[in-house]
């Protein structure tokens, strides 16, 4: 690399001055002994550093303590210090005989190899948009899920906690949402196998493939992006044993400001105009105690425990890795927990120079308690019940039995009773086996095959005792799943005519997945002490069973070409055949091409030294999505039962949801333009990407009118686009002897827009609540993004001065007022309009890692901005309608009176209509969360004499900055749905956690 002109002059002047000085001092002596010490920036001595007198073959290497001695004859000699992984340094010792050299680590990561689809590539050769995450980025944090590893760290990857329950729901989206169908989950590949068991520890690298050049090799499974996880393998000759333990204490981050017993009582009498609602005895009780704080009754302290052990190493030609983990999470909501036991091992053997074989085995068992209560929009949702139960009601009656029902507030059971008595145990086992073989047929020609299979078994067991069921009942559900995949690859690499490198890959793959289920339900169990373990005791028994299978067969190929590491070209092609489609729709074809140009390698730039790298990338390609389950083109009958008033349940069959035989692949075409640039020897690196995706043949479910049976019919209708911009900057901000600071900032903007819906003008979404909101608050509309909120616009309350106008609507002052779009003096579905959107306008993540001597601090902040949340829980806590019978939130007690007109809370008027589908319940769901703060202290082997130790204290999700009125703006009762998101119905909030941990490595 040539320095630029200014630098050149300065440097030459400097060298000239130095030379003069050296010459003067060196005149006295001829050959002399130069000695010294070489260390890294951390002051640790570096053994084995090469030292060479420039222009000669004379030299030496440092000893184990980093020391060296060298005889130098020429007084103008220049010493070159070089060491793998460090930047070379040149020193002209002149008259100095004692040197202290600090070598800087080579920050150039360009030679890093990254994992891509069916292979690896030098990072510098990439033409597509691929983000890599190394475990270094999260190793000091108590992460237990893939979502936590990714959250806030990768631009274009949105990780949302859809609920905060143990083993909770997370949603990962790469570059927006392509499909209305809702299956927008990225493909996750673990060591070459799709849908493998995701490792909780022992991750070597995670790659996120974002653009079509990277994902099109996965064809029909690539449209939503691909996450490739590579696990650790043994490498060092000395066995390495690591033990880690973390214990976390969690609490709900925030609570609603609810009325206490006496306040509720006074308000209720005022609101309803009725008196004598409570007996004196009741009044005495809740006046003296304040009544029941149902939030406190249900939400307490949770504890997470996480223990890990791993052993890895190499013995001869065998490399091995073993790890085990135990995770125990007790949730903040009463009677919720999750336990996971996992085990993972791999053995790799280099049988010969040409043949490598490997065998991976991993297994996982998980147990959950009442996981179903974490999300959903059912009225049995425990937190919603806690928010709407009257505080005047005790948990227990004076005689110690449960107080079952609330005379004025909720129509549901006592939430403490319902949650405490709930028995819903989930148990599942997963096992994955993976064998792989790699054989070098000729130099440059490799054959490899990966055969993997995964078994899953699940047993769910439920029991409803006499407290929560009319007749005690129990059910057990057994599920089995099997999937296998065989992939065969042939790859050929050749360098020719010096500067041309060509790599060809061809492959074939078959995938099969199959599942079965058996469910048995028993009702009217006469002896409840047996729980769900003796279904035979029930008088009415129901058994159902199911089977499902689907297959995929694929052929694919890839060509990589580069010229002089300056110009790069990649082309891929894949053909996928799926059992889910019929006849001519069975096969889908997915091509891609990409090119890149590293401008920094051009002569006109390489001399300036500004850029360490400046690569311009461009790609185009098509990926697909099956987006439907097995049998989607079929319309099976659905099972029902009726007793005919006998004790037997007679089976019945009813027409199922109408089907569509013409279903075909959904295709996503994506164009990507990106720049990778780095400056200052790579101390600052910047990646910018712009993408434009269009999905056609959009697989979407169209709601059928109830007169056609309701439900949803699938169809390929319309198209949708996602455009966006991603930027990330990584910088080494400070790098001193004792102190370093690394920072990474990334931001993404994704604009999702439905372009066309075929014959439909609008598709109503999900997220309905039985008994409260039968009409979805979501609507999919052309020209608008998914998860657009739809309803009547709330305009406040009719004021006394507007009495005449109000009467035209059948209203009186104090009633709710809505925008009447068609001016017909009626508020109905015709007046519904766009009232908000659940998608953020932009998101960002900011991670920092500080190190001072043995101390370290990590801080990760994430921001999500410009989105709305429909707070359905808030609606029902503040208004009376449907199954919502009373007001529990303090804010809503400020009701309208002729004297108090400046409020949004209507009086209790029989002419008032509280509309659930209204803008009144939309709240600003933007937030900034400090996802993680970890402080750790390293105790090195030198101090402890036995092992390296690390102590950590961290806080997760401890601080949230938001205007949202609910507990947590991030969660939604709609799970991972994309057409419906941001609907809070007392959804399990993400808790704030303090974790202490220790790890020790022998």
């Amino acid at each position, binding site marked *: 690399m040539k320095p630029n002109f200014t630098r050149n002059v300065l440097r030459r002047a400097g060298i000239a001055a130095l030379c003069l000085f050296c010459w003067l001092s060196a005149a006295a002596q001829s050959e002399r002994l130069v000695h010294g010490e070489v260390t890294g920036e951390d002051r640790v001595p570096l053994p084995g550093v090469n030292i060479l007198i420039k222009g000669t073959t004379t030299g030496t290497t440092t000893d184990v303590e980093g020391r060296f001695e060298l005889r130098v004859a020429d007084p103008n000699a220049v010493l070159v210090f070089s060491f793998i992984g460090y930047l070379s340094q040149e020193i002209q010792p002149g008259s100095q005989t004692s040197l202290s050299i600090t070598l800087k680590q080579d920050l150039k990561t360009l030679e890093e190899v990254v994992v891509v689809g069916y292979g690896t590539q030098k990072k510098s050769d990439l033409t597509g948009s691929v983000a890599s995450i190394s475990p270094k980025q999260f190793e000091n944090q108590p992460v237990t899920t893939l979502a936590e590893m990714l959250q806030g760290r990768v631009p274009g990857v949105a990780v949302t906690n859809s609920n905060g329950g143990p083993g909770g729901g997370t949603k990962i989206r790469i570059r927006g949402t392509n499909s209305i169908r809702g299956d927008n989950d990225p493909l996750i590949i673990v060591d070459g196998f799709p849908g493998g068991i995701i490792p909780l520890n022992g991750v070597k690298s995670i790659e996120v493939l974002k653009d079509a050049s990277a994902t099109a090799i996965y064809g029909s499974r690539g449209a939503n992006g691909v996450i490739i996880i590579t696990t650790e393998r043994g490498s060092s000759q000395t066995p390495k044993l690591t033990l880690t333990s973390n214990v976390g204490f969690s609490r709900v981050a925030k609570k609603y400001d609810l009325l206490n017993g006496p306040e509720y009582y006074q308000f209720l009498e005022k609101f309803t105009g009725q008196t004598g609602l409570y007996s004196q005895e009741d009044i005495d009780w809740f006046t003296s105690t304040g009544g029941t704080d149902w939030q406190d009754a249900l939400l307490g302290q949770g504890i997470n425990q996480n223990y890990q052990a791993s052993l890895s190493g190499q013995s001869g030609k065998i490399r091995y890795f073993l790890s085990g983990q135990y995770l125990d999470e007790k949730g903040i909501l009463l009677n919720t927990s999750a336990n996971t036991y996992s085990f993972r091992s791999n053995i790799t053997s280099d049988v010969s120079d040409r043949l490598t074989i490997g065998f991976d085995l991993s297994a996982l068992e998980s147990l959950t308690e009442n996981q179903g209560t974490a999300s959903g929009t059912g009225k049995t949702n425990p937190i919603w019940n806690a928010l709407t139960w009257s505080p005047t009601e005790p948990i227990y009656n004076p005689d110690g039995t449960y107080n079952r029902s609330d005379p004025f507030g909720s129509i549901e059971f006592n939430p403490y009773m319902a949650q405490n008595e709930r028995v819903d145990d989930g148990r599942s086992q997963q096992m994955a086996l993976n064998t792989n073989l790699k054989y070098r047929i000729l130099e440059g020609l490799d054959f490899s095959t990966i055969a993997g299979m995964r078994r899953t078994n699940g047993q769910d067991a439920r029991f409803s005792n006499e407290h929560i069921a009319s007749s005690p009942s129990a059910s057990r559900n057994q599920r089995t799943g099997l999937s296998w995949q065989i992939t065969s690859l042939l790859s050929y690499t050749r360098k020719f005519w010096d500067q041309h490198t060509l790599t060809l890959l061809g492959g074939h793959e078959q995938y099969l997945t199959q599942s079965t289920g058996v469910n048995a339900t028993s009702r009217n169990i006469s002896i409840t002490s047996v729980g769900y373990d003796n279904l035979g005791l029930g008088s009415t028994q129901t058994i159902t069973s199911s089977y499902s299978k689907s297959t995929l067969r694929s052929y694919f190929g890839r060509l990589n070409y580069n010229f002089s590491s300056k110009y790069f070209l990649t082309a891929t092609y894949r053909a996928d055949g799926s059992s889910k489609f019929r006849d001519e729709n069975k096969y889908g074809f997915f091509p891609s091409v990409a090119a890149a140009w590293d401008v920094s390698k051009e002569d006109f730039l390489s001399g300036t030294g500004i850029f360490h790298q400046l690569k311009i990338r461009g790609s185009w390609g098509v990926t697909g999505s099956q987006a439907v389950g097995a049998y989607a083109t079929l319309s099976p009958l659905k099972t029902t039962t009726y007793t005919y008033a006998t004790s037997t349940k007679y089976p*019945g069959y009813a027409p199922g949801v109408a089907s569509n035989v013409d279903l075909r692949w959904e295709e996503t075409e994506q164009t990507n333009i990106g720049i990778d640039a780095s400056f200052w020897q790579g101390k600052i690196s910047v990646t910018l990407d712009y993408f434009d995706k269009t999905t056609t043949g959009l697989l979407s479910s169209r709601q059928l009118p109830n007169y*056609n049976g309701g439900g949803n019919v699938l169809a390929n209708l319309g198209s949708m686009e996602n455009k966006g911009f991603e930027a990330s900057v990584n910088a080494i901000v400070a790098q001193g002897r004792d102190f370093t600071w690394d920072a990474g900032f990334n931001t993404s903007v994704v604009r999702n827009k439905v372009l066309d819906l075929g014959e439909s003008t609008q598709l109503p979404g999900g997220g309905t609540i039985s008994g409260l909101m039968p009409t979805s608050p979501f609507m999919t509309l052309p020209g608008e993004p998914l998860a657009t909120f739809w309803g009547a616009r709330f305009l406040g309350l009719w004021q006394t001065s507007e009495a005449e106008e109000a009467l035209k609507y059948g*209203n009186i002052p104090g009633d709710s007022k809505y925008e009447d779009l068609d001016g017909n003096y009626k508020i109905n579905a015709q007046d519904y309009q766009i009232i908000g959107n659940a998608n953020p306008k932009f998101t960002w993540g900011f991670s920092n890692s500080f190190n001072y001597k043995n101390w370290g601090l990590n801080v990760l902040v994430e921001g999500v901005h410009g989105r709305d949340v429909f707070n359905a829980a808030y609606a029902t806590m503040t208004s009376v309608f449907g199954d919502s019978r009373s007001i529990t939130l303090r804010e809503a007690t400020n009701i309208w009176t002729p004297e108090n007109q400046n409020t949004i809370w209507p009086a209790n008027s029989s002419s008032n209509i509280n509309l659930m589908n209204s803008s009144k319940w939309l709240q600003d769901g933007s937030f900034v969360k400090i996802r993680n703060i970890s402080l750790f202290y390293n105790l090195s082997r030198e101090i402890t004499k036995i092992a390296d130790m690390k102590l950590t204290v961290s806080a997760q999700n401890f601080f949230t900055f938001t205007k949202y009125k609910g507990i947590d703006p991030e969660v939604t009762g709609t799970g991972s749905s994309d057409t419906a998101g941001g609907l809070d119905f007392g959804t399990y909030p993400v808790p704030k956690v303090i974790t202490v941990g220790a790890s020790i490595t022998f």
Partner: protein
Amino acid sequence: MKSKKYTVAILALFMLCITTSCSDFLEEESRGLIFPETFFTNPAELELAVTSIYNGVGIQNGHDRIVAPWQGADDMTSTLDMHRQYDVFRGNGSNTDVERWWRESWAVIIRCNNVILNYHRAEATEEQKNHAAGQAYFARAWTYYNLVRTYNRIPLVLDLTVDFEIKKSEPGPIYNLIVEDLKKAEQLLPIKWTNYKALSGYTSGAAKALLANVYLSMAGYPLKDESKYALAAEKAKEIIDNEALYGYRLLDDYADLWKASNQKHDEIVFGIYYNVSAGDGNQRTPVSSMPTEYGGWDVYFAEINFFNEFPEGPRKDATFQTTFPMENGDLLDWTENRQRHPYYKKMWDIPGYNPEKPWIYINYQESRTNQVIRYAEVLLTYAEAKAMSSSPDITAYNAVNRVRARAGLDDLPEGLSREEFRDAVVAERGWEFAAEFGIRWFDLVRLERVEAAAANRHEWENPLVSPPTKNEYFSPIPDNEILRNPNLAN
């Protein structure tokens, strides 16, 4: 040499992988699923399809909420928001209870259409086919009858074809379909079932009684086809003349109608049956109509003027709860309870219910039967229809007086005019069937007396902002259905 062997072995393996992909690897294999194309082949399958109809009817009528528009009548009221909306004639398309009634009604119709379109394909005896078709025609007619009376103009759907653009039909063709269906059902259905449907199967008698009711409705608003009075009278008479054959009679004691032990009795012409221990409970009993003091849900209770005008006697005693024993020993009059209204206790009695201590928690669902058509209604339908089609003759008097006698009332005075007689019978219907299956509400609608009834409102009732008009006779179609098919807005 060794490496050559490897090469051969591995290439063989590779070839194996590709060639084992037998050609049917991508064939879809749907085990365990049943498809309509191959269904309806035998009597068992016919029966499975019919059972789904009963399932739909059971679910539809087993909720704690009644059908909100019935609240428009003067026999009952509620403070529950969704019900109160209709009590004050503010029904709207966002109402959750009316949305459910719509949705679950159509679920029944689709299942009926499925049987009606396909039953002939089954290899079954004529009787089996007839029974299957008869039950489907009956349930379809009854459900359309509910829909047309609730929403008036609705789509007329006779098959399973998806149609996002269907327009609403006028009520006339809907009523014609109902009549046609019931004419078939009365022929096809048995008079009595001998198998597991002995308790709950739809019968020929039920079809005739329902047809009489339908004719009576057609004679009133909105069709106002007075020629139907004669048909109603004729159809009701068919049953009355053959009481013994059909097995119908009035129970001697009105209170016996509402006993938990009387899940099935001779007065039920058409009932909807449940069995709670098998997981098929009826939530319309008991707490649905109980006061909150007893852990009830206040879904409906009696309007005060209606109660006051209700003639005294054993029927009134069996209908209303007017005094309320409390746990602390107090005995409250209805004017002192929280709602300051009398309650309907018809659905309160279930196993474990103690009238002395009604506050003791009992189940929110039970096996009580929803009595949709009682024999008393057949008698009163006859009386009214006979009077209106010709004159209030002796048979008309006899019919109404049988009902009055059981209620502890004197016979109607002789010599009443047609209209006077009709009004007496309509009043009788109100009292006899108070808070039962919307009978009072639909009487007020067909006779265009909603406005008059609404004017007779006690000051303690939910206040009316504006009096009802003909616009409030029928309920709007649910908003979410209009969003799926905007044509339904017109």
